[in-house]
């Protein structure tokens, strides 16, 4: 990850899957997250917003956040001891990223 770069980019990281708590079978897979710096701003609300909010929303925050725009499922093969077998486990990975609606930054 190249650090403080504007925009929203694919960022690789390793996920390790365990078959159980004792980690009898396990597998590691490289998947992608979306990480970045999208533009946001905050400024005095328009008069129409003040009226509609009964003068409580005196700031307007206009923002976008780095989110996954395209995802895919990938199979992780688990390696087991002494020839035992475990079915593959499916996990998600990001395929593309974009600056889009911030759905979870509201409180």
């Amino acid at each position, binding site marked *: 990850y190249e650090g403080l770069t504007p925009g929203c980019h694919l960022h690789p990281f390793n996920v390790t899957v365990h078959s159980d708590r004792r980690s009898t079978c396990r597998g590691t897979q490289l998947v992608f997250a979306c*990480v970045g710096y999208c533009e946001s701003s905050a400024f*005095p609300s328009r008069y129409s917003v003040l009226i509609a909010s009964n003068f409580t929303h*005196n700031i*307007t925050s*206009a923002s976008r956040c780095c989110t996954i725009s395209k995802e895919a499922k990938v199979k992780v093969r688990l390696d087991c001891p002494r020839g035992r077998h475990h079915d593959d486990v499916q996990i*998600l990975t990001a395929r593309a990223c974009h600056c889009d609606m911030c759905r979870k*930054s509201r409180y």
Partner: protein
Amino acid sequence: VMVNLRRFTGCAVREFTFVVRKPGCRGAHITTDACWGRCETWEKPTLEPPFLDSFQRVCTYNRSRVVTVTLPNCDANVDDRYSYVRALSCACGTCDITTTECVTSP
């Protein structure tokens, strides 16, 4: 200090000009301090439901002050005072829906 805005990351106070449109008054231009920037956000897959984890912060007011001005050219029976918030400092944080209109930028 010159800052290259195309490469800027973080959240800072920035000059902002807007037009006040209050019924009964002519539009008035106001220049003040507001917030602008790019905050770190991410979304990543997880093994457990809901299979996605995210971190979202937006550039918003940290400390602020209410400024009241007198608008020019208002009708005689109209309150010619107008109040708005000026940013004293800005920070990457959550959008507080009790004080803030949270919208998606175009």
